[in-house]
């Protein structure tokens, strides 16, 4: 994958600078491609094209456009094994997470509906999970108190000041 990109794509240094700022000390430039991250990655073994060392290699060369348009970046399970084992203190997981954030900021939607459903639950109940299906049994248990009731108007007002406002405008 990498050699073809070298021949055909242009690097985006501005986007790379953004990723660098987001990951702080876990500077992707320190990566020397030992592949310990991918060797320990539980998703890499299950999903073709999910290779943390390749994501980091591409990021450090500035091929950000390629990366944010690759839907597999959304498959990272955040187990942090890569971050833990990297001998160079790079954090592939945080590189990947800053890539999905950049993708979202640039208007790219996540490839599956899960995150949007969780967002919908949060602005209607304050919680990411759908509460309605368990209310029946839970209410009958005397020793459990009522579920918390956060001030939803306040949570919405906070989230309106983030890039999630994009999803709220569509909701309103």
């Amino acid at each position, binding site marked *: 994958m990498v050699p073809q990109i070298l021949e055909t794509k242009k690097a985006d240094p501005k986007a790379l600078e953004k990723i660098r700022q987001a990951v702080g000390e876990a500077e992707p430039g320190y990566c020397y491609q030992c592949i310990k991250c991918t060797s320990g990655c539980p998703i890499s073994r299950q999903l073709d094209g999910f290779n943390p060392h390749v994501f980091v290699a591409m990021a450090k060369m500035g091929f950000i456009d390629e990366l944010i348009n690759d839907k597999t970046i959304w498959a990272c399970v955040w187990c942090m094994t890569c971050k*833990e084992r990297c001998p160079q203190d790079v954090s592939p997981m945080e590189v990947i997470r800053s890539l999905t954030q950049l993708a979202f900021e640039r208007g790219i939607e996540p490839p*599956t509906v899960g995150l949007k459903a969780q967002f919908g639950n*949060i602005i209607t109940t304050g919680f990411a999970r759908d509460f309605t299906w368990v209310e029946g049994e839970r209410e009958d248990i005397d020793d459990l108190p009522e579920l918390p009731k956060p001030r939803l108007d*306040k949570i919405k007002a906070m989230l309106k000041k983030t890039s*999630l406002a994009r999803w709220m405008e569509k909701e309103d």
Partner: protein
Amino acid sequence: MDLALYLGCTVPTYGYDYELAIRKVLPKFDINLIDLPEAGCCGLPFGDLDSLAWLTMSARNMALAEEKKLDILALCNGCYLSLEEVKHFLAEDPELKERVNQLLAEEDLEYKGTHSNYLVLEILHDVIGLEKIKQSVTKPLTGFRIAAHYGCHALRPSKLPGRPDDSETPIKMERILEALGADTMDYPERLACCGTKEYSYDPEITLKLGYSKLKAIKEYGFDGLATICPLCQYVYDYSQGSMDATFKTKIQVPVLYLIQWMGLAMEMDPEEDLGLEFMIHTSPVEPILEKLQI
């Protein structure tokens, strides 16, 4: 010790057996739990989308506890790491803290970072301690070999200050299981990720990851698994039916929260106190109760 009980999203929906057991067991050790009626999501799901939204949602819950001058007990590894990371990031970056506080001002809240966050494992092992746990056991789990599953976010990243246990060779869960009279041992898949987050990308991958661990546990001759996180429990307990259907098998590995194993050793009621018969607990319990003659 007074602690604000922070439930998060998964405990009240798929883990209220865990919540019940915590509310029943911890007060027996002078841990006084105080609810946060206005708490909400820790914001971790927003981590993929927008850092500021994630940080603010976590800081919001911590500010609610700080208003009551309380430290937080988190039941979910995901929530716990989220609170701990956000606390760390905001302590390191005053400018970021200021931005978060500008958003929290919508609710007249201010995040200061003056409290501590605890995970159940820390309360059991470091605060209550193995001696008191041993003394509380009236029905030792003799003859049980139980596998421990810590969950990624209880251990990693080790660079974050104040982690509950060592990231590659944790031991606290095993020590607690031994204090309960159970037998336990290391196994190659001990630190393997449950894959719960993959549910939103490709559920089959989660089921594969969960199934491979349960299968291994069975092969090693364990009688069951102990967890401390509702997200891991969702995979290893609640998803066993889906694994059976997907992989044409019948796994039947008893998976209980560590606090439920503890409650059984303290002769607490499996249903009234530990919620083992709730609809959200789906892995087999009968073999354990039979063996314990309950």
